[in-house]
């Protein structure tokens, strides 16, 4: 690996960006369960040791308080970061996130810069049950005033964390539970940044456009490799950001390939794919050979039983079948 690259895990990459930015900007502070004791963000020294107890705070299990204090501190000019552990807990802190964080400035007619990063890891972990495994990102899309990022690689986790900490708007950072310890090449550069709102074409192709994000990216790339052997050339777009969504990249691709498939781990009904599919057919209807298809989890609460859980989630086989179906229409 080149000198300027390192092979580190996704969570470690997020933490690296956070530490680098905390060194530059003393208005950034972190709170959450177990952060001071290094639970989530494990660095060599430990966050609290380097930045002090003032800037690294352990809290109780109080999601509403956590999210509300983040909003209040951000309104008062600080840059708080909180890891709330599970996307499903967004519902416990619903008022604080979707009303206060998202809407405060609009309600008061004043768009002052407001930085707050709320980390909500989403997705199944292999048997964590229906209240710890869900994907809540569509909620974040539905309340205007938030920005929403969904990195799928360790490099993007670092780059987007930096971008979120420099963003003058609240960012919901949906990291992926499944990819947390996946290692990948990450630039060492402590200025490495991935702009919010820019998708990445993870694999160029001409036969159909697969639009995905987060935990499903590796599966979609596997599907593309498999189907290449069958003469189907898929283009795979990793959205990386859901709000604002990079519509120009998505639509330009669909206008070239004339077929689209959206794949996400979230439940299929009313998931992000519904908005993406609707928008594609609104704006590129006359470029489509076939309807836009979507793959998501089954419309059930995810069972605790790991084997049952796997049946509910989009698999490589399942995604491949849907892609073949798309090509046959």
């Amino acid at each position: 690996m080149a000198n300027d690259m390192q092979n580190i895990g996704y969570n470690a990459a997020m933490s690296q960006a956070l530490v680098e930015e905390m060194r530059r900007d003393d208005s950034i502070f972190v709170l959450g369960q177990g952060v001071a004791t290094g639970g989530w963000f494990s660095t060599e020294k430990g966050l609290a040791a380097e930045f002090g107890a003032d800037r690294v705070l352990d809290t109780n299990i109080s999601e509403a308080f956590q999210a509300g204090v983040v909003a209040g501190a951000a309104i008062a000019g600080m840059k708080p970061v909180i890891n709330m552990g599970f996307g499903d807990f967004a519902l416990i802190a619903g008022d604080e996130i979707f009303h206060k964080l998202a809407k405060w400035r609009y309600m008061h007619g004043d768009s002052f810069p407001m930085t707050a990063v709320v980390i909500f890891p989403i997705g199944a972990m292999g048997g964590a049950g229906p209240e710890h495994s869900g994907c809540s990102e569509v909620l974040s899309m539905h309340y205007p005033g938030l920005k929403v990022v969904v990195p799928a690689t360790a490099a993007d986790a670092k780059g987007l964390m930096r971008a979120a900490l420099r963003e003058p708007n609240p960012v919901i950072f949906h990291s992926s539970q499944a990819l947390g310890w996946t290692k990948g090449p990450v630039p060492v550069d402590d200025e490495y940044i991935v702009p919010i709102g820019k998708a990445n074409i993870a694999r160029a192709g001409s036969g159909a456009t697969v639009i995905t994000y987060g935990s499903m990216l590796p599966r979609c790339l596997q599907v593309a490799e498999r189907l290449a052997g069958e003469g189907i050339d898929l283009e795979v777009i990793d959205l990386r950001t859901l709000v604002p969504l990079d519509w120009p990249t998505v639509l330009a691709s669909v206008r070239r390939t004339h077929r689209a498939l959206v794949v996400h781990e979230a439940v299929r009904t009313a998931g992000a794919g519904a908005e993406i599919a609707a928008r594609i057919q609104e704006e590129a209807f006359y470029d489509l050979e076939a309807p836009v298809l979507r793959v998501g989890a089954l419309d059930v609460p995810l069972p605790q039983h790991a084997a049952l859980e796997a049946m509910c989630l989009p698999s490589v086989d399942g995604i491949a079948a849907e892609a073949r179906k798309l090509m046959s229409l």
Partner: protein
Amino acid sequence: MNNSPQSPLASPGPALLAQMYRRMAVTRHIERLMARHVREHKFSGWWHPGEGQEAAGIGATAAMAVDDYLWYQGRGCSWAIGKGMAAEPILADLLGKVTGSTRGKGAGVPHWSDRSIGVMGEGATLGSVYPLAAGSALASKIRRDGRVSLADFGDGTAARGTFHETMVHAAAWKLPLVYFCENNAYLVGTKLRDVSPTENIADYAAGYHIPGVVVDGQDAVAVYEAVTTAFARARAGEGPTLIEAKVFRRQGHYAGDPQQYRDIEAELKHYRDPLDVLGARLEDGQAAQLYAEAETEVQQAYAAAQAAAEPDASVLYQDLYHGQ
């Protein structure tokens, strides 16, 4: 019951008393005006009359520095006026005009805000005030800027989970935060005693090992003194205080509330108008003169607000994001 710690109390001098009275009078004139306006015009928001409770907001804000953080969720406008906002942007907000402090966005349910004088705004979900105020308190603690945050709320909101989640942390971390409860004994139409295990909200304080102070909410000076004490404690790094002001809600929950749940006549026998209580501390004739000045000021502000423009569709996408 009254756990206030022994400390020298600072009482307001004559200049401060006059300013308090004038602001209370402005508040009262706005109350009267809004009661009339809502009857005579189609009003697109909800007006929650605060008549009778003005001493709480006026007294408390008089004890706050200009850069102390105020997060209010009370009724009426005594807190915003007391903290230093003028009548015109407040009325313009209520009428939904672009000259309001929220530039037409926060019409109806008041969201008056002016961060430059510490009026942080209002959320419409009652109980959101606690963690937000703890947020600014935490910011102050990290920055060591000596500012104190105050969360104002009514007795009906004291049962929200966020009250507890926040105070647990504020007390543990000794945040510079003061809880200020305006207890008018009614949650909309429900009597507090039917839904609360204790006579006083201040009684909750013992559970957090913080001072709980009950104060006469009709007496602005009493309120001022209690808040001064609490703020001194907070600025010294000793942590939060829970102040409960017993207040009298003179009107209904909302403008036009028939109040069938109240024996208002019986209650009025015990009513002490906060203007009278505060006015008694002024020089002869001063109260009447300030009252008249305040009336003129409010009338002019009302006329200006009525003449101001309504927002048009161009504001719809403004203030969604910074930098867009």
